């Protein structure tokens, strides 16, 4: 899957040399399968279940798993399986928004810090470190105290605390590339800074960054679940893995099924994206691979 020989290569490396190699890594495929199942479940939720996620059915209160309710029902008779599927939607939405925005912000600020003047770099690094010094959940709680809970606030907090992480990586790469030969060559023919960043530096930075971002997805989803569990993320009655867990906690002495149903998708998300991400990283940048 490499570019045809006639096209000029813009910067150092071919784009997709390793996809075939990826498919040789069993854990990576396992991860990919899990990710596909999760995304599928989230996207096609309405077709996979007859129930509505918030539909009450007092008669089915705290039902055990059965043919009717595959994972049982909660204290208001809502079908747990359905709520888990729709919870996946919330997770997907939060992950997609927050990581995209964080990547944009991170790339922008990172390149700014790496390519710009020294004082700007020092200032940005200080701000990054300061933002990173807040324990994420606590920072989220501080902001939510002021604004009230909402899913958008959750996304915003995640974006703010994630940008420094991506920015540092982009900054490091930018600084390294800044002294590399092809950049110096481009500068010697008078390439302006914008073209430089966009054409020469960005393509080399984006690869590892995307892989890291994909391994960040479980972290983001966990934060959303955690906040929703506390009642400070999505507002009830909306279904999220966190709210299912909250209901499970409240009714732990009545039924274990809610807790199991809420926790398993989180664990699967972590396993799936982590395995997939590690396999991708081994394929695209074997130098990062840990000795085994």
């Amino acid at each position, binding site marked *: 899957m490499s570019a045809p020989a006639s096209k000029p290569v813009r910067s150092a490396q071919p784009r997709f040399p390793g996809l075939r190699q990826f498919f040789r890594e069993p854990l990576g495929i396992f991860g990919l399968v899990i990710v596909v199942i999760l995304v599928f479940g989230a996207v096609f939720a309405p077709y996979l279940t007859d129930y509505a996620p918030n539909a009450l059915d007092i008669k089915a209160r705290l039902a055990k798993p059965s043919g009717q309710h595959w994972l049982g029902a909660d204290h208001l008779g809502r079908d747990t399986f359905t709520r888990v599927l729709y919870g996946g939607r919330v997770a997907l939405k939060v992950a997609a928004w927050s990581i995209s925005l964080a990547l944009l912000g991170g790339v922008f600020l990172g390149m700014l810090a790496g390519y710009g003047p020294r004082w700007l770099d020092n200032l940005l690094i200080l701000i990054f470190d*300061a933002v990173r010094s807040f324990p994420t959940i606590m*920072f989220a709680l501080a902001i939510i*105290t002021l604004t009230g809970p909402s899913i958008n606030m959750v996304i915003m907090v995640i974006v703010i605390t994630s940008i420094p992480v991506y920015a540092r990586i982009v900054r490091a790469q930018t600084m390294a590339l800044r002294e590399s030969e092809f950049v110096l060559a481009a500068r010697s023919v008078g390439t302006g800074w914008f073209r430089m960043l966009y054409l020469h530096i960005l393509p080399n930075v984006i690869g590892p960054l995307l892989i890291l971002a994909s391994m960040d997805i479980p972290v983001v989803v966990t934060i959303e679940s955690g906040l929703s569990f506390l009642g400070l993320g999505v507002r009830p009655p909306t279904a999220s893995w966190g709210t299912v*867990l909250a209901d499970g906690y409240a009714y732990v002495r009545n039924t274990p099924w809610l807790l199991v149903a*809420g926790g398993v998708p989180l*664990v699967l998300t972590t396993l799936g994206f982590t395995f997939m991400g590690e396999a991708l990283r081994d394929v695209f940048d074997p130098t990062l691979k840990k000795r085994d």
Partner: protein
Amino acid sequence: MWVYFLKRLGLSLAIIAVAMSILFVITHMIPGDPVSVALGPRATTSMKEDYRARMGIDLPVYIQYGRFVSNVLRGNLGQDVFSGLSVLDIVKRQLPHTVILVCVAIGWSATLGIILGCFSAVRRNSILDRIIGVITVGAIAIPSFVVSLYALLIFAVTLRVLPALGAGESGDIVDQLKHLVLPGFALGLGWVGYIARLVRASMLEVMGENFIRAARAYGLPERAIIARYALKIAIIPTVTLLGVGIGNMLSGALFAEIVFARPGIGKLIYDMVLMRNYPVVQGAVLVTTALFVVSALIADIINSYLDPRVRASL
């Protein structure tokens, strides 16, 4: 060595200063009257007046900022909206519980993690190594608050072997220890996984270095080589991880305290968030942040002691 310490200290103070400023700024960035925003919908008019006067809301922003900074430096983190008690006192009363929990969690998870990591590295690709590998992946994959919930479910509710809620009778050490078991376990489990994997990777890397081969060539016993030559270097990334991970652990402690109804900073913040009691939340977050920055500093100091080359840089 001292120069390094002073530089790092200065950097840490700068970070805390910027963090404080960020907290100050967000109250003013939220749309609406800063006083209502800060004190929440339940504040009475007299509270608001009081707050307005104390914080000097009508004064220019930079004077407010100045007052804020000088207050914090003097230890005055403001007053609780509802009870009038000093925020600092409220926080001080809750802090020890969290610190104990975090220390217990780090203690057992670091010890077990290092031991497992070393074993895995020395007996690489053996059955034991593979088993440890699978267990650690599993341990990392479960978010700590989910571990808390499941630990509660399995050990407290289903099996009834350990107490579910609270911190135990004060004065009764055994009871308090029993109440620490589940939260400490839940908080530390993921860390055992991270640390074991990191120690394994670091040890494998170090053991492949030339100087280890040279040490063997001098006939040094393998145990001494592992403990004094290899581990001393391999442990450095773990120390860094712990220093930086304290923040994560403090967040995890928050959940553990809520799930197990333990007193502590986390529970405090949560209760105050529900009451929209911003001054206390701000004060508690500031204190935890400072704690985090200090522990990262301590981790760096420990590393500079372990690896003399670090002292030469920076």
